[in-house]
């Protein structure tokens, strides 16, 4: 039996878990793969490593391959998304100064209501609010934009969004360069731990089923290496299933905390995995359902409607033709390759590759390829529904 080595890139984040667990827990080996995991320092570096073939697969911000397809950033490289590695998992946090102003205004830090949190935030700060995000093309910035637009009033005009690398987020807040951030775990929890920030909302409060990180490959590679790509998809699906079991969380946090991966205490990493989030340096805790999801509700399926929602948001923010963005996005999320890889494994596959985004209140059964499939709550905070067939 021969094992195929595959170089795969990741950033030190809690949601790099599927790639790391696939290798460490033997799910890659089950598919006769040996993942050579390479840690990158920035999203642009990881994108270039993938574009120039230093790695053949990479964890990526869901909007990044779409941005490349729209000609935004990068160097004209084209990527394909083979699967969604994680759903949700971001937090919005504010500086100690803003948190104090929020508290004196009577805000309860409930950590679940995006409207209440937004109103309290703009009532607490009279001037501009500078918000740090990890990358211009990220769910962090898309969720923020969607939230600010949905809040109405002058929310959009009163915010300036700037790029701050996650490891420097807490420092930027302490030195007063930013007043708030939207960042992936464990960097939000780390800011709380260091006493630099207070968490205001989980990303789920804005969109309860937001595709966060994806597995990206070069689009040419996706075509040429269909069998190998299929093995990768399956290994990561099994890693996600293992991660979704509550009994796996402690061990997963331990593995991720290793020096070659996140190099941070397991206790801080575990917060996102269990959804038990410490929101203030004083230790106030909040439980968030599906804070980050690796498996349930067909989390790994790359829905074309997810790609279209992201592409339309980006087109609006960057002044591109929405029609062109919509068309180009469609082919980036390869639901066809995902289906081909997962057929025959017993995994539940949806019958359609498009769905209404934001239209599931509780859990909902939908038609699957062979049996019906259970979808998880999928709601935008403002109750709007994104219909890919009526979006233009």
């Amino acid at each position, binding site marked *: 039996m021969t094992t195929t080595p595959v170089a795969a890139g990741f950033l030190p984040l809690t949601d790099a878990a599927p790639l790391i667990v696939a290798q460490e827990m033997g799910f890659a080996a089950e598919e006769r793969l040996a993942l050579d995991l390479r840690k990158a320092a920035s999203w642009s*570096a990881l994108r*270039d490593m993938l574009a120039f073939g230093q790695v053949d697969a990479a964890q990526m911000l869901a909007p990044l391959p779409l941005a490349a397809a729209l000609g935004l950033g990068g160097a004209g490289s084209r990527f394909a998304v083979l699967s969604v590695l994680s759903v949700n998992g971001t937090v919005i946090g504010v500086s100690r100064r803003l948190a104090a102003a929020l508290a004196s205004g009577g805000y309860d830090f409930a950590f679940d209501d995006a409207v209440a949190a937004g109103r309290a935030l703009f009532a607490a700060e009279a001037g501009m609010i500078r918000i740090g995000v990890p990358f211009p093309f990220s769910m962090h910035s898309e969720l923020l934009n969607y939230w600010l637009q949905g809040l109405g009033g002058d929310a959009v005009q009163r915010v300036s969004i*700037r790029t701050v690398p996650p490891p420097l987020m807490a420092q930027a807040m302490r030195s007063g360069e930013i007043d708030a951030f939207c960042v992936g775990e464990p960097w939000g929890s780390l800011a709380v731990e260091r006493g630099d920030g207070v968490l205001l909302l989980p990303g789920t409060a804005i969109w309860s089923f937001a595709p966060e990180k994806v597995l990206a490959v070069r689009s040419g590679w996706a075509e040429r290496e269909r069998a190998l790509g299929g093995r990768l998809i399956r290994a990561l699906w099994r890693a996600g299933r293992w991660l979704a079991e509550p009994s796996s969380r402690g061990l997963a946090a331990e593995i991720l905390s290793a020096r070659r991966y996140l190099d941070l205490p397991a206790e801080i990493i575990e917060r996102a995995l269990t959804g038990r989030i410490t929101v203030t340096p004083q230790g106030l805790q909040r439980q968030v359902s599906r804070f980050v999801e690796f498996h349930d509700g067909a989390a790994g399926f790359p829905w074309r409607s997810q790609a279209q929602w992201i592409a339309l948001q980006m087109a609006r923010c960057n002044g591109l033709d929405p029609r062109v963005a919509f068309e180009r996005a469609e082919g980036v999320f390869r639901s066809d390759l995902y289906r081909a890889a997962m057929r025959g494994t017993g995994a539940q596959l949806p019958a359609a590759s498009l769905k209404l985004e934001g239209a599931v209140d509780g859990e909902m059964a939908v038609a699957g390829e062979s049996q019906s499939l259970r979808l998880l709550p999928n709601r935008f905070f403002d109750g709007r529904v994104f219909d890919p067939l009526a979006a233009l």
Partner: protein
Amino acid sequence: MLGRIAQNFSGEGARLPFGHDVALQLLPAVGMLCGMPDALSIIVVEADRERAFMIVDGLREAGDFDIYVIADPSGLARQIQLRDPDVVLIDIENPSRDVLEELALASGPQERPVAMFVDRSAEGLSSAAVEAGVSAYVVDGLQPARLKPVLDAAIARFRLFQRMRTELAETKRALEERKVIDRAKGMIMKARGIGEDEAYALLRKAAMDQNKRVAEVAQALVTAAGLLS
């Protein structure tokens, strides 16, 4: 026109890991260089002073450029916009690189469009740069012929630095291991009343029996002894 090699090691970037003023003392030497009136202006984003000097030296050998080093990543976008360079060089390992991505996108009417160099240069050069660990951002429309010597020089220095970094890490590890082995040897000598060579032979035998490295066995002994004492 005098070429300028400026730096902000002791100015705005006051919060730096190094405290003294070697950078300033070296300035006259590098500042004497004469540049053409249209010399390319280059910003090197690098917090490590040794490394910054290596890169600056390499660039100076390659041609006459206006070189400015930014050591402090805070306000990076603002600093770069202020300097308005033709080329920005940054380590691929530097997380602040994502800040430059933002600049590359912000090309309003007032701003000079900035792009990552891979848009404009030969494929081989780009991947060589990515491999060597350097990323470059250039203003739109810069001739590849003018960029090539800059990149060649940067790539060479980044490669050299990568080798040095690996060597340094190896040396450090070897030194630390030797310290641990010496401590373990000392413990064995004391506990058993034997000589140094005998103690080392015991360690080596234990390592071979357990299919481990001598340093690992020594570390285990030191840790265990620490727990028991």
